[in-house]
């Protein structure tokens, strides 16, 4: 699933490792989500949304609705 994670992370000036630490996941997990190769579960998507103070829809792009 496409997402704006890389841009949002860059705006905060966080590295993948920084974001991984905040989410308590591995850096590989962040990379896999950013590149759209791995879709996070709903709880992890909510954690991301809370971290960026956004809604899930503002971070993840639903290909089917566009």
């Amino acid at each position: 699933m496409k997402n704006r994670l890389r841009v949002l992370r860059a705006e905060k000036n966080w590295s993948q490792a920084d974001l991984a630490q905040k989410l308590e996941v591995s850096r590989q997990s962040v990379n896999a989500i950013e590149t759209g190769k791995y879709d996070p579960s709903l709880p992890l998507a909510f954690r991301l949304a809370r971290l960026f103070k956004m809604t899930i829809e503002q971070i993840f792009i639903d290909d089917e609705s566009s």
Partner: protein
Amino acid sequence: MFCMPKTPEERRYVGRLWFAMTAYIVATFGATWTFKHHHPRGASMYLLASLPALPILAVLVIVGLYLAELKDEFERSILVESSLWGTGTALALATFWGFLENYGTVSTIPMFYVFLVWWMSFSLAQVLVRRRYK
């Protein structure tokens, strides 16, 4: 699987594996030595012969515990997929070899090699599955 354990779950996993492997070596040498020098009979013979299998079964439990304790869902998904590849490969090779044995085309090999095949395929699958996400 990995060089240096980073998270507490990984450290527990590696520690438990080391414990199980040490127990396996001790049980294997102990059972072999006892069979050679004391020739056990009856129930003790069965008990002693099955002793090396217990740490191997413990490894399966340890992998299960690691899956349950893992907080990182992405890492868990890699491990689950890899274990399925390992299980599939071990079952496929065991079935294939079983039929070859059945028709006398190959010699019989001990059943415990199935676990070794599972472990090797499980480990290799982790490397291959991870590459997909790079």
